[in-house]
């Protein structure tokens, strides 16, 4: 019932949810039940890659919510992703126990290496999964709350906001690179052994993580959809287009932005938390400004303010990245740069926009007419042409 209300008039969302459902069913079957020599077997590498993409898609969804619907171009969303990742990483670090290189049950390896005597206070509690999960949500949410409160209250908007969000992620990157911060410095946290008692590299764990990511993405999609179809969502859209009009309608614009920003940050953080156990490492590189901006391109390529477009963008750009970096490693940055330029210049609505235009054209027959015109110019006979 609720599902029906959320997904009516949302063809893309329906397709997305069906696909996610398929992932949740097929991945365990194809990886665990189908024998390895069968052509239908899905290798664990592919499962992990898929899981990674799903996390990226969740991150892109978070950005689309705040950028596409509210017009806030955050160039610091990777910061929240990274923070969520670190919170999860800290839990996984504590799970290593005495299986580290130095065999110290109390301290992670890098602390032993730095001659630290005891666990810093902010690491306490991270041996409990529930605590870590709480922190995944709480810390980035709080940071987004404080940052957003300050920024929105003083009406920092547009490009200025983008620049200071980028400054935020740079500050975090520099901070996490410090050894004295106690997060492993530039090497970050790695060498994880197990999660919730399950060995982290086992096939079944990988499959479970991938399914969890798909589930989370589906859930997040529905939540975002619920938000944007509510009156709150319309207000957010309104303030994107005419902020002072919204204010003069009696809305405290700052609060509307702030809650959306916090929610988006929390989604990004959850994506980070799911991402870390799948790739097995988290380091300050995740806070690199480039990451945040690359994320913007996923959303721009997919199509802003559609939600499912962001997911499509995350998958297509990342697939292209995986493929290109293995085939022509040099070409990737060229391609990414060109993508930025082309999408902003020629495809302001992204892939979703292209698909919509094509469908529109087919519906009113203009595609066929254009095709015929093109064909007749080159002397190709078509079916519809009368001699």
């Amino acid at each position, binding site marked *: 019932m609720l599902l029906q209300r959320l997904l009516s008039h949302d063809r893309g969302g329906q397709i997305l949810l069906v696909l996610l459902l398929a992932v949740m069913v097929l991945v365990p079957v194809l990886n665990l039940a189908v024998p390895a020599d069968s052509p239908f077997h899905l290798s664990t590498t592919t499962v992990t890659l898929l899981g990674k993409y799903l996390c990226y898609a969740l991150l892109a969804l978070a950005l689309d919510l705040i950028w596409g619907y509210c017009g806030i171009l955050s160039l610091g969303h990777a910061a929240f992703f990274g923070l969520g990742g670190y919170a999860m990483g800290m839990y996984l670090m504590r799970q290593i126990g005495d299986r580290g290189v130095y065999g110290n049950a109390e301290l992670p390896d890098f602390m032993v290496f730095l001659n630290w005597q005891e666990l810093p206070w902010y690491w306490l509690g991270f041996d409990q999964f529930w605590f870590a999960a709480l922190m995944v949500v709480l810390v980035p949410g709080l940071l987004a709350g404080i940052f957003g409160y300050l920024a929105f209250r003083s009406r920092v908007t547009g490009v200025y906001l983008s620049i200071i969000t980028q400054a935020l992620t740079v500050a975090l990157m520099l901070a996490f690179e410090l050894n004295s911060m106690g997060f492993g410095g530039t090497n970050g946290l790695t060498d994880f052994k197990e999660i919730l008692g399950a060995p982290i590299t086992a096939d079944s764990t990988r499959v479970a993580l991938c399914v969890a990511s798909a589930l989370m993405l589906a859930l997040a999609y529905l939540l975002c959809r619920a*938000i944007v179809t*509510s*009156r*709150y969502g*319309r*207000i957010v*859209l*309104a303030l*994107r*287009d*005419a902020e*002072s*009009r*919204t*204010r*003069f*309608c*009696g*809305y*405290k*614009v700052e*609060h*509307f932005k702030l*809650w959306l920003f916090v929610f988006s940050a929390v989604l990004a953080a959850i994506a980070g938390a799911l991402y870390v156990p799948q790739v097995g490492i988290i380091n300050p590189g995740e806070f690199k400004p480039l990451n945040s901006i690359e994320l913007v391109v996923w959303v721009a390529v997919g199509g802003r303010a559609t939600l499912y477009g962001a997911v499509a963008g995350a998958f297509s750009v990342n697939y292209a990245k995986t493929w290109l970096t293995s085939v022509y490693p040099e070409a990737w940055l060229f391609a990414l740069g060109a993508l930025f330029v082309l999408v902003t210049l020629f495809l302001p609505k992204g892939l979703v926009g292209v698909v919509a235009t094509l469908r529109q054209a087919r519906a009113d027959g203009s595609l066929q007419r254009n095709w015929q015109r093109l064909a007749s110019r080159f002397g190709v006979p078509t079916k519809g042409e009368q001699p």
Partner: protein
Amino acid sequence: MKLLDSAREGLRRDRVFDFMLPPPNFSEDLDTRHGPILYVEDVSVSFDGFRALNNLTLYINDGELRCIIGPNGAGKTTMMDVITGRTRPDSGSVWFGQNIDLLRLSEHQIAQGGIGRKFQKPTVFEHLSVFENLELAMASDKRVWPNLWFRLTGEQRDRIDEILQLVRLTDHARRRAGALSHGQKQWLEIGMLLMQNPRVLLVDEPVAGMTFEETERTAELLTSLAGRHSVIVVEHDMAFVRSIARTVTVLHQGSVLAEGSMDAVQNDPRVIEVYLGE
């Protein structure tokens, strides 16, 4: 020096930080026993040495339709900015009725409290439908949480339909507001204002870019609103002002130059000088 001043300003005992104030209580009736609903007293605003408003004093009566005219740069828009909380004056006071100090409130509080404003350039939510535009403007709980669960009641739907009819946009209710003509956008914005149930309407150049017929309709609409609402109209179109005005205020260089009926004002030698030049 500036730092010292701002520190002193921050430590003033007679001011309270915005966030410490109790929320304004609009449920108690606005006290307009003395007649005026809006008191603008000795208000001065300057930008970089340029005095946009210079000890402006103005009283608007409850239910009155007031036209404000004046040459460019006379401070008309700045005056509206001050009343709606967009610009903080350097000195002076602005009271809504006798019991609400507008200078202590922020824009959204003022809007919720019953002062609606139409911008010079028509500003509507272009990506939303006409219906949705009116729905968002409607007087209701404007906090975040209730809006997540908001459902239109039949009563509210009727109210929207009523306004749609009033501003003649019933046929366009499902269209995107961005696709409306200029004149229709002006009306939609007036409609949005009315959805807020305001006590005071500030209307900045309502007939700019309208056809003759539309202008006439607008004049009719605004006059019909007076009485139930106080309406302040800023306009350049003299014919339009003449057609609706009862009292006209002339602003010049940030203060009131003349006030009275249209005829009296038009024959005032000072006004003639300002408008026709030396």
